[in-house]
């Protein structure tokens, strides 16, 4: 069984070690280090894309793979970012979650707020977070034959994980919507699950 084999590889049944002790005693209230070079990130990310591309058949699969890699980042970034808030709290409502993503999470990850947060005019359960120039993607140019591919799938993975953490699971996709001078303008589209929208209605009514 492959699944159990992988589990056994990843199993963390650790004895008490120096390392484990150090990790549990470190101070995470502030980042230990602030920055690395964008080049370092860009090179690693380019390798992630190249690697993923070799293991999938189509653009959808490629995006799914980047999404998966992003999700593991999202869970950790979220819990850590929240821990560093003055008031450690939870978000469980759709709007608050979106605002938190748009402001706090974006600032923590990209040093700026996202450029806009909008509700879809077509359906109530769809929201869009737009980043005009995602710095981590700035060197990427997608070839014409892959025009529908959005490297922001990695970011949408982060967002999807966080929405799930906030008990607002959603299908999150990423789309390149270029604008004048912004060839990589990226729209992160969240379509919240039906149960989430129903819960929202109940909570609104119960107020």
């Amino acid at each position, binding site marked *: 069984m492959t699944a159990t084999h992988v589990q056994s590889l990843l199993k963390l049944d650790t004895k008490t070690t120096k390392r484990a002790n150090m990790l549990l005693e470190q101070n995470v209230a502030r980042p230990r280090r602030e*920055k690395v070079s964008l080049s370092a990130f860009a090179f690693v990310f380019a390798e992630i894309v190249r690697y993923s591309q070799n293991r999938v058949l189509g653009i959808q699969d490629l995006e799914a793979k980047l999404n998966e890699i*992003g999700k593991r980042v999202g869970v950790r970034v979220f819990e850590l970012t929240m821990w560093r808030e003055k008031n450690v709290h939870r978000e469980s409502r759709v709007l608050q979650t979106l605002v938190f993503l748009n402001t706090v999470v974006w600032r923590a990850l990209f040093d700026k707020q996202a450029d806009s947060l909008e509700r879809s005019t077509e359906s109530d359960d769809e929201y869009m977070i737009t980043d005009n120039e995602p710095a981590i993607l700035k060197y990427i140019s997608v070839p014409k034959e892959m025009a529908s591919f959005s490297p922001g799938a990695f970011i949408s993975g982060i967002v999807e994980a966080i929405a799930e953490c906030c008990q607002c699971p959603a299908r999150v996709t990423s789309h390149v919507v270029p604008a004048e001078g912004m060839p990589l303008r990226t729209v992160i589209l969240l379509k919240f699950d039906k149960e989430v929208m129903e819960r929202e209605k109940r909570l609104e009514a119960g107020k």
Partner: protein
Amino acid sequence: MAAKQYKAIGEEAWKNNVEKVNAELFIFTYGSLVVQLVKDFEDYGAVNKQLDKMGYNIGVRLIDDILARTGIDKCADFHTTAEVVAKVGFRVFLNIAPAIANWSADAKEFSLILEDNPLNDFCELPPKAVQEGLWYSNVLCGVIRGALEMMQMQTEVWFVHDVLRGDDVSEIRVKLVKILDEEVPVGDE
């Protein structure tokens, strides 16, 4: 150029000529990549290889980034190369400067001692990974190898120690195999 100058070049470039990104985003992304590789390959040896290969692909590209940013020219000897790798390369990308140590008598091998490796932050290896020999930051070996190859140096680069595996320090060994002729063929692995 003297060692001090390289330190200054590295620091100057880091301060004024390098766009930066949140270190934790980078660290978590690297972690997620390694876990993805474990899931895909189901074998720690294969993960080491893949990380080295990805590093190599990065290295053959990243060297141009360093050169374009710092204006450094070819190194006169392997000692200078070591200085540049440690004080410029590591500084410009990861904002660390490993110590250089343990030169071999023939001056063809040295070690980089990484007291502070950002990739390790937050990471604790599963016991299986320690047993089966995962070098979590193996990408760095590939990067060094790829970058030096573009500078006509064929090297072998490997981890000797890693704090993640319970060692006191993290140590990367770099061995010069030979100087290549100009215009060597180079490509992706």
